[in-house]
């Protein structure tokens, strides 16, 4: 699903003393089938922005087009249709868990949207394996799970919906390193296989650079820049000014460049490649 925002404002609690404008004239385009990472410091408006994608919040001003749906200040009576196609993993998994059992929770979305349940249930074991959730937890209350188990439950429920647009708000926060890699690979795999559009909000710069084909930087409710990951490498001072950062690998390459007085052509996330470059420099130095 392609997404086009035109001059979108969003104001929390309008006309009260607590009125707060969290999005200010936001315009951008996300092509169908792309993988977009959204970064920005705490409170910059990331969660507010992505909640417009499934109509959970509606623009106070301007228009947001999500596929064939247009969202604005006016009520839209197609919200249910929209939500059937847009899967969302919230920043705090607790916000999307409410059923008596883990199993009911995972099946809630498909059931609510009228999926054929016998078919959906057949897919359950595979999904559990994909997100690393033990079958023995299915009859447990979701509130008697560990933080990471809740996260996996929330992800499983959304993945069963096979959404056209998958929106992920810090989906790996609280996952152990193995689980984190497992679900990121799952998102990436489905993204390619199903021609799904994916939007990932993250503070993890490595994931942003590894998986995204465009990165959007939010700052104070505005789009500060939107560009290819490689282009952002040359804007690191700018990012640092915004309280953001680059992946550790890039810092390491910088450090090697400074200490050894060399310059590398291109940034890489691969330890193997960096080790090769470093070793070349150290060994090559012998013959100089």
């Amino acid at each position, binding site marked *: 699903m392609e997404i086009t925002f035109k001059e979108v404002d969003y104001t*929390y*609690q309008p006309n009260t003393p*607590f009125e707060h404008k969290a999005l200010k004239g936001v315009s951008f385009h996300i092509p169908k089938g792309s993988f977009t990472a959204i970064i*920005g*410091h*705490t*409170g910059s408006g*990331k*969660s507010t922005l992505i909640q417009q994608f499934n109509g959970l919040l509606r623009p106070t001003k301007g228009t947001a087009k999500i596929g064939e749906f247009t969202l604005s200040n006016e009520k839209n009576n197609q919200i249910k249709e929209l939500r059937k196609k847009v899967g969302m993993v919230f*920043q*705090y998994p*607790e916000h999307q868990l409410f059923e008596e059992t883990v199993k009911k929770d995972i099946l809630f979305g498909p059931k609510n949207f009228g999926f054929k349940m016998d078919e959906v249930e057949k897919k359950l074991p595979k999904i559990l394996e994909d997100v*690393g959730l033990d079958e023995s937890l299915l009859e447990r209350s979701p509130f*008697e*799970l*560990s*933080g*990471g*188990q809740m*996260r*996996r439950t929330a992800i499983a429920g959304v993945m069963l919906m096979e959404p056209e647009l998958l929106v992920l*708000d*810090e989906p790996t*926060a*609280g*996952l*152990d*390193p*193995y*689980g*984190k*890699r497992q679900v990121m690979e799952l998102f990436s795999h489905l993204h390619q296989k199903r021609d799904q559009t994916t939007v990932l909000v993250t*503070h993890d*710069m490595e994931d942003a650079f590894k998986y995204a084909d465009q990165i959007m930087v939010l700052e104070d409710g505005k789009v500060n820049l939107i560009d290819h990951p490689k282009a952002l490498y040359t804007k690191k001072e700018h990012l640092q000014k915004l*309280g*953001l*950062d680059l992946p*550790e*690998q890039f*810092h*390491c390459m910088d*450090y*090697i460049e400074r*200490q*050894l007085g060399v310059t590398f052509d291109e940034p890489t996330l691969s*330890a*193997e490649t*960096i*080790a*090769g470059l*470093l*070793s070349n420099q*150290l*060994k090559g*130095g*012998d013959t100089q």
Partner: protein
Amino acid sequence: MNNSRGGNILISFQDVSFQYKESDPYVLKNINLEIEQGEWVSIVGHNGSGKSTAAKLMNGLAIATEGEVVVDERAVSEETIYEIRRKLGMVFQNPENQFVGTTVADDVAFGMENLGVERSEMEVRLKQSLEAVRMKGYEDQEPHRLSGGQKQRIAIAGILAMQPEVIVFDEATTMLDPRGKKDLLDTIQELRKERNLTIVTITHDLNEASYSDRVIVLNQGEVHFEGTPRKLLEQHEMLPLIGLEAPFVTELHQQIKKHGLTITHEPLHYKELVDELWKLHLKK
């Protein structure tokens, strides 16, 4: 109470096992641990390994099924929890679970009120702790109407304001941006120097854990490893087997070894690795 190294033991687990319900399996099994005053210990382990449960046992949110948890020489029990919570502050995995006030200021003040902190002192600490987490100006906001990372900052401020002797951070920085995370680690370091604060951080980030004095690795409810961060990275081969992963620096060291280069010890940071390699190279 002192341990063999002469340090003052603040928290100890003595043969502790725990199950949530009698019909449930044990989620912690025969745990023995000691944490010294002034120490910074990090706890890591796969999802469901028992980290948060161990934290709950420290502040009496849960009571050991078998064995005993002792905090500052008092066994944690129904009778001692109020005393213990004055000394041991805990920042939960989900900050929303600890909000009680209708405004940020009320929320941060709540813990201090319970401790009977004087009004004027309260004002000072409120200001200081909001400054420490960079949330000045949000005093009148509702905690529930904040961004994910702002909520975590407020939860942290509330505990800082109570000035406990021990703070347990249960994945309290997962939603912070890179600078926010670094700021918090710096604040922790300062507080340790100033007040001999004891810190327990539960985290999945081995880079973060490498700032601490000691790492405890839980695996399926048991202590799998206990030692310095460097020692843990030396044993990096076991990490993938228990749901963890070696950090970038360890991976880089492994890769560089394939080129016939190495340094004498396992590095904690890429700077250490690059510097040592460079020095060895110059000597040649």
